[in-house]
């Protein structure tokens, strides 16, 4: 009995692991599919259908047939479809020609292709530093480096 239980338990674990390995942290919303709700902790999200709600994924790809309503946050985001809401990108945000965006964009690096439509507010993250790039950031970097060195010496 114990052996059998052990065996079945192992099988379950294996099947779970296999499933997890194959589809690890990817979300695919196919064309014509509608989803409402919250997606969290995904690594790669590929959206060709309609998604309403909140998505939190490191890579987000909204294809030209994709429609998104709500809050979107991730590091690398590519938009080719329609967005109504907020986009928050930590690294690269690419807006393709077919994109139509209404809302607020927060970005670190933004590339927009000729023909894309954007209506709303664009904010650059950490623009306090980058607005006076000639003098201030260099001094600050030196300070942080010195502090780090102090720590190392103390240890």
């Amino acid at each position, binding site marked *: 009995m114990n052996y059998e239980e052990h065996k079945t338990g192992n099988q379950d674990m294996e099947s779970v692991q296999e499933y997890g390995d194959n589809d690890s942290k990817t979300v695919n919303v196919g064309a014509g599919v509608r989803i409402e709700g919250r997606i969290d902790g995904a690594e790669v999200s590929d959206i060709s259908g309609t998604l309403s709600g909140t998505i939190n994924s490191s890579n987000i790809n909204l294809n030209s047939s994709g429609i998104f309503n709500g809050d979107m946050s991730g590091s690398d985001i590519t938009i080719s479809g329609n967005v109504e809401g907020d986009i928050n990108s930590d690294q690269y945000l690419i807006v393709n020609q077919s994109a139509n965006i209404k809302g607020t964009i927060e970005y670190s690096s933004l590339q*927009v292709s000729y023909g894309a439509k954007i209506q*709303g507010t664009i904010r650059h993250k950490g623009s306090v530093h980058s*607005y006076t790039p000639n003098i201030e950031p260099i001094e600050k970097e030196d300070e942080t480096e010195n502090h780090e060195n102090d720590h190392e010496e103390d240890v």
Partner: protein
Amino acid sequence: MSIFGSNEKKVEEKTTFNFDIDKENINQSNLAKDIKIHGSIEAKDYIDFAGHITGTIKSSTIYLKPDSYVKGTITGDTITIEGEVDGDIQAKDLHIKSTAKIKGNIRYTNIDIQNGSIINADLFYSS
């Protein structure tokens, strides 16, 4: 006599036009780095601007070079920005290059933005 008069004017216009093409491209104005302007610049064809201006720029084609600074409004058909702008931009074709820093309002029909540019602005699309 009146017909003759109008012909004469046309010839004059053509000659001046050809003269411009021979010398440079069509009515091109170049404003260098060390120029500082408080006021407005208005031109028909092309402005190549590298200086500082507090005021307005109006032309069909405007090219703002990397070290340029504009505080005020920029209006044109085709605007290319490589410098810093604090104010309102209105363009049919707007090209924002990697060195650009923009703060304010942008009204456009077509836009493209290069990697590296720093934009804190409200965008308004109009067809």
